[in-house]
C-alpha cells in the first residue's frame, strides 16, 4: 500500500508542496526591488542553484519517496544550506523580501520537515546514535523557530523596538557576557537558589511538624492559603523595606512564593500511603518516625518533586519581578526594567534568554532528580 506508514504518507504530500513553493519564485520576485526575470541574472546564481536543487530533489524523492539514508541526508543539507543562503541574501535588503523569497523559505522549511520526518521514522541499530537523533530532532525544531523569526523580522523589516531578530540578540548576548553573568549571579545564584532552598526547606519542615501536631494542621493551612494569595507586586516593596535593597529581599519574596506549594504538596503526599501499607507498619510495631521514613516519605516523594518543579519556575518569576521594586544596579529584573526604558530591546531579550535557559536547566535538573528518586512510580516507570 502507498500509505504504509503515516510518516511516509506525510513526506509524499510535503515534497510536491515544497516543489510548488519553490516554483513561486519563478512567478514572483524574490526581493521587491527586482523583477522576477532577474532570478536568471548572474547575481542570483546561488539562488538559481538552490531553486534547481530543490526541483531536482523533489523529483528524485517523488520517484522514490522511501528514500535511502544518503537521499535523506541530502534533503537535510539542502534545506538548511538553502535557508542559510536565504538569510545571507537578506543582508542589506531588510524589509525587501517578496513572494519569491517566502516561496523559497517555505520550500526549505518543508524539506526540513521531510528530513525530520525521515529521521524520526528511522530505527537506528546503534543505541547511542538513536540517543543523538532523539536530541537532534527537537534541536532542529527549535532552530527553525529561530530561522523563521530571523527571516520574518528582517525580511519584513519589523522595527527593532518591537522585535529584534535573534542574530542581533545573539550579538548583544556575546558582547555583554560580563554584565549578564553579574546579573545572573545576583538574581539566580543568590535570590533564586537561596530563596528556593529556604522556601522549599521550610515548607517541608512545617509539613512534617504539622503532621505531628494536629492543631497546626488545621490552623496553618488557611493561613498558608492567605499567604500564597498575597500578590508579589504588593509584597515585594515591603520585603525591600524589611530586608534591604540587596538580594536578601528578593530571596524573601521567593521564600513566600515557594513555601506554600511545598507545604500543601508534602502534606498531601504524607497522607497518600495506603491503609494496607500503614497496617503493615503497625503489625511490625514500627515507631512513628520509622513509619515516616520507611513508608510515608517515600510515598510522598512524587508530590514533593511536583512542588520542587512548580517552585523552580515560581522562584525565577518571583526574583525577577521583585527586582522591579528597588535593587542595587545589578540583577536580571533590574536590567530588564532599565534597558526597556532606554529602548535597548535586544538587551532585554538577552536577559530573557538567560532567564529561559537558567529556568529550563533548573527545571530539567529537578526533573532528572525526580526520575532518579521516584523511578518506581507508575508515572515514571511507564
Amino acid at each position, binding site marked *: 500500500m502507498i500509505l504504509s506508514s503515516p510518516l511516509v504518507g506525510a513526506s509524499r504530500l510535503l515534497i510536491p508542496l515544497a516543489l510548488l513553493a519553490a516554483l513561486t519564485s519563478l512567478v514572483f520576485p524574490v526581493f521587491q526591488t527586482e523583477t522576477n526575470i532577474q532570478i536568471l541574472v548572474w547575481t542570483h546564481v546561488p539562488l538559481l542553484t538552490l531553486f534547481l536543487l530543490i526541483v531536482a530533489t523533489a523529483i528524485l524523492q517523488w520517484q522514490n519517496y522511501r528514500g535511502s539514508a544518503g537521499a535523506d541526508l541530502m534533503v537535510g543539507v539542502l534545506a538548511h544550506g538553502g535557508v542559510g543562503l536565504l538569510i545571507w541574501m537578506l543582508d542589506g535588503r531588510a524589509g525587501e523580501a517578496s513572494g519569491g523569497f517566502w516561496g523559497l523559505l517555505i520550500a526549505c522549511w518543508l524539506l526540513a520537515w521531510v528530513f525530520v520526518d525521515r529521521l524520526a521514522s528511522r530505527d537506528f541499530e546503534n543505541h547511542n546514535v538513536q540517543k543523538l537523533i532523539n536530541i537532534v530532532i527537537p534541536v532542529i525544531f527549535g532552530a527553525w523557530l529561530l530561522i523563521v523569526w530571523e527571516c520574518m523580522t528582517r525580511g519584513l523589516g519589523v522595527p527593532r523596538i518591537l522585535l529584534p531578530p535573534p542574530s542581533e540578540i545573539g550579538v548583544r548576548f556575546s558582547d555583554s557576557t560580563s554584565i549578564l553573568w553579574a546579573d545572573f549571579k545576583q538574581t539566580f545564584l543568590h535570590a533564586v537558589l537561596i530563596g528556593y532552598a529556604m522556601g522549599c526547606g521550610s515548607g517541608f519542615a512545617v509539613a512534617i511538624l504539622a503532621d505531628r501536631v494536629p492543631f497546626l494542621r488545621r490552623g496553618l493551612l488557611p493561613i498558608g492559603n492567605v499567604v500564597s494569595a498575597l500578590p508579589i507586586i504588593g509584597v515585594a516593596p515591603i520585603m525591600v523595606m524589611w530586608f534591604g535593597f540587596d538580594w536578601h529581599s528578593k530571596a524573601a519574596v521567593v521564600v513566600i512564593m515557594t513555601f506554600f506549594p511545598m507545604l500543601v504538596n508534602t502534606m498531601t503526599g504524607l497522607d497518600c500511603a495506603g491503609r*494496607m501499607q500503614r497496617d503493615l507498619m503497625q*503489625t*511490625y*510495631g514500627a515507631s512513628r518516625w520509622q513509619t515516616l521514613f*520507611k513508608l510515608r516519605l517515600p510515598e510522598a*516523594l512524587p508530590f514533593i518533586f511536583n512542588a520542587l518543579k512548580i517552585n523552580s519556575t515560581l522562584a525565577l518569576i518571583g526574583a525577577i519581578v521583585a527586582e522591579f521594586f528597588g535593587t542595587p544596579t545589578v540583577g536580571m529584573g533590574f536590567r530588564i526594567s532599565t534597558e526597556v526604558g532606554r529602548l535597548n530591546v535586544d538587551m532585554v531579550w538577552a536577559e530573557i534568554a538567560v532567564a529561559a535557559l537558567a529556568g529550563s536547566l533548573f527545571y530539567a535538573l529537578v526533573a532528572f532528580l525526580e526520575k532518579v528518586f521516584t523511578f*518506581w512510580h507508575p508515572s515514571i516507570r511507564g
Partner: protein
Amino acid sequence: MTDTNMTGATDNTTASAGRDAQDHADIVQPVITTKDLSLTFQTNDGPVHALSGIDIDVNPGEFVSLIGPSGCGKTTLLRVIADLEQPTSGSIEVNGVSPDAARKARAYGYVFQAAALYPWRTIEKNVALPLEIMGLSHAEKKERIARNLELVNLTGFERKYPWQLSGGMQQRASIARALAFDPALLLMDEPFGALDEIVRDHLNDQLNKLWHKTSKTVVFVTHSIPEAVYLSTKIIVMSPRPGKIYDVIDCKLPRERTLEMRESKEFLDVALRVREGLRAGHSYDE
C-alpha cells in the same frame, strides 16, 4: 512473654485436651483465646455488628481457617487478633497477653489480601523491612532474607522490583516478608484471593509444605471451601449480620497434604459439612 493464667478453653475438644495435658504437667497453652468477643462499628447508617459473641481457641501448630460469606466479620476477627481493630466487648489474648502487647512484641506476621510490597524497594529490601525496623544486624538480615526467599522459591529475584514480578510472585514475596522475623504465629487474610486458580493451587501446596516444615500456627481467612479444607486442621464457619461462629469443623487429614487428597472421601465429607454450614448460616438472608 509474661506468665499467664489462661481462662478455661471454651470449646469442648480443647477443654478436655487441656485437662488431660494438665495431668501430665504439660499444659497446652492456646496461642489465641477469645471470650464473648464482640465488635460494633458506628457508621452514619447506624451501628454495624461486625462480630458478636466470638469464642475461639487456637492451639500451637494448628492451621485454623475462617470461612464465610462477605461481611461475616472473618477479616475483622483477624484484624482484632492483630490489634488493627479494637473489640467493643469481651476478651482476647494472644500468647497470653493483650493483642496490643503481642503486636509490640512482634508475635505475629500478617499477610494481607494484596502483597502490599513497597515499590521503591527491591524484593530483598522488602523482605528486610521488618528486620530493619527490629534493628537486626546486617549479617543476620542477609541470612534471613536468603533463607526466607528460598522458602518461597524466590531465590534469584532479590534485585527485582515488585512491579517487575507477577501477582503470584509478589504474594510469595509478601509471605517471605511475614516469615522474615520468624514469628510463631502467621495471620493470613485471603492472601491468594486475587490470584487465578492454577497459581492458587500451587501456592496452597507451597503453604502447606511451609507450615508442615516450620510448625507455625496459622490463622487463615478465605472464601474458598477447597482451599480451607486442603490447608486446615480446623475450619471455623462464620455467618453474617451479626458476624458469629456457626460451626467448628476438625479436619483430620494428615498434616502433609497432596492435591490427590482432594478426591478422598474424608476431604469431600469435610467440604460438604463446610458447604452446608455456609448455606445454613446464610439462609435467613433470603
